[in-house]
């Protein structure tokens, strides 16, 4: 087993607009909330 050199938990994700991984996770969580809200509205609209 070879230990990998990189493992800083908050290293830069290298994604434009995001400086930390925490930001990426919050973005993913926000998108999830939006999807659930959209699906709820979708179900109500077509009920």
């Amino acid at each position, binding site marked *: 087993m070879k230990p990998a050199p990189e493992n800083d938990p908050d290293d830069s994700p290298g994604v434009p607009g995001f400086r930390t991984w925490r930001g990426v996770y919050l973005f*993913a969580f926000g998108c*999830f909330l939006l999807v659930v809200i959209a699906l709820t509205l979708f179900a109500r609209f077509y*009920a």
Partner: protein
Amino acid sequence: MSALDWFVLLGTMIGIAAYGTWRTRHTDSLNTYLKGNHSTKWGTIGISVMATQASTITYLSLPGQAYENGIAFIQNYFGLPLALILVCAVFLPIYRKLGVYTAYEYLGQRFDQKTRLLGAGLFLLQRGIQAGITIYAPAIILSTAFGWRLDLTIVFTGLLAIVYTVTGGSAAVNLTQKWQMGVIFGGMITAFVILLSKLPDNATHLAGVMGKLQAVDYTPDPKLRYTFWSGLLGGFFLSLSYFGTDQTQVQRYIGGAALREGRLGLMFNALFKIPMQFFIVLLGALLFVFYQFQPDTPLVFNQSAWQRQLSGPAGAEFRALEERHTVLHAAKQEKIRAWTVAEQSGDPAAEAAARVELAAAQKASDALRKQARDTLYAAAPEAKKTRDSDYVFITFILTQLPHGVIGLLVAVMFASALSSKAGELNALGTTSTIDLWRAFRPLAAHDEARNVRNAKWFTAFWGVFAIGFALYVSFAENLIEALNIIASVFYPPLLGVFLVAFFLRKVGGTAVFWAAVATQLLLLGLFYFGKDTVAYLWLNPIGCAACVGFALLIQSLLPARPSAAT
């Protein structure tokens, strides 16, 4: 299928398998064989994670399930993005830091050898069974629909996956999955567009009125299979187990050029998995609308079994059912027309009255379908091996799509079978090599060529095991649910062990080992005796909490540990 369909089907399937085999034929490094190329980027990892999770059952059975019960199944995936965030933040950095080949190797370092073997054993047991279902599921449906021999379909699919997975290992799996997902996306989008072109303008509204678009149900009833709460909590634990502790998935993301690539690959799935599944269940709901307008909508979609009975000794009974179906279907179409007129008139009272009449017509139609299926199953018990809804999408493909596109859609079914099957074989071979063979023969760990050779033999063994399992075992439960039910019974103790490993440093190997054993017995008991009380998704949080609780309890009864290591 025409010659063009066969050309498209065999060209894509054998072409992709041959390309994967040829490109990775010189894979002789253990690291590359088990983890894939060092240069693998997040896009490949993301696609590979998605392709491994979505088997043929996803593309074949899920539209049928939505046709039958609406799109509520989408809630099953609500816990997935949250679980992936946790895997990215906690699980993945630890796996990469330790440089392990398998998730269970970490258990050996954190606890002891017996806990590692328990983890690997639980994985091999449940994933070995699931590998059989993965290959059986598409084979039974496609062989029935096309009149192919079931055994030959199983053997052909299994052998094709074995050839390139054994040859190139993880590198071949990653490479072929990219192309297979291309075929899958292309085929599914083509089918969706053709379906849309055949629908009336108010199709979505009609699907909603007929109760097929109830995507989210906030009812807090544990007996209901699909609710927001069971999807969020049960789905979270199920996904955390699957993505965090199942080697089939761990193997897909622990390789790659850097930690960043694995994380972004998982975030790709966190963002796109629910929309992708929504697209598939919506396809099923719209298929339902499509068949409301067809004059020759089948009473039973497993037409090959149904036609045999029509021409058999009890044919009169089956013909009588068909005649009743023709009358009821025509009456329902009349109610749909009445509802459309009422809806366009803008009169809410008239619309509500028409909606009630339409619901009554649908109820009568559903009752007749159930009676027809029961009659079929009584006359031909072998038809029970699959659900009639599994044949909805394939019937649409065969009767409504042009030649060439039929071949492409059948290729979608085989591509998805091969991609998930290859991921499973790769993980089963790796776990057998690293956690069983090397654990018992530590001196052999330094012989790289021998390790690769053994990994290939183990991969081939599991491939043959899965083929044998698929040939000799039959499944009665809905196939997509069978996979989730098996996972919900066997995953929770495994996840509990990993959560204890990550978050409870004071708990040692002996306590967590016996906690996992006790939890497994508890879950088997709950599954067999509490089926009607607890929906299966709830077994995930219950089992996980029980394992953590048992571990703490047993640890408190044991003599204090000299030191707590991570």
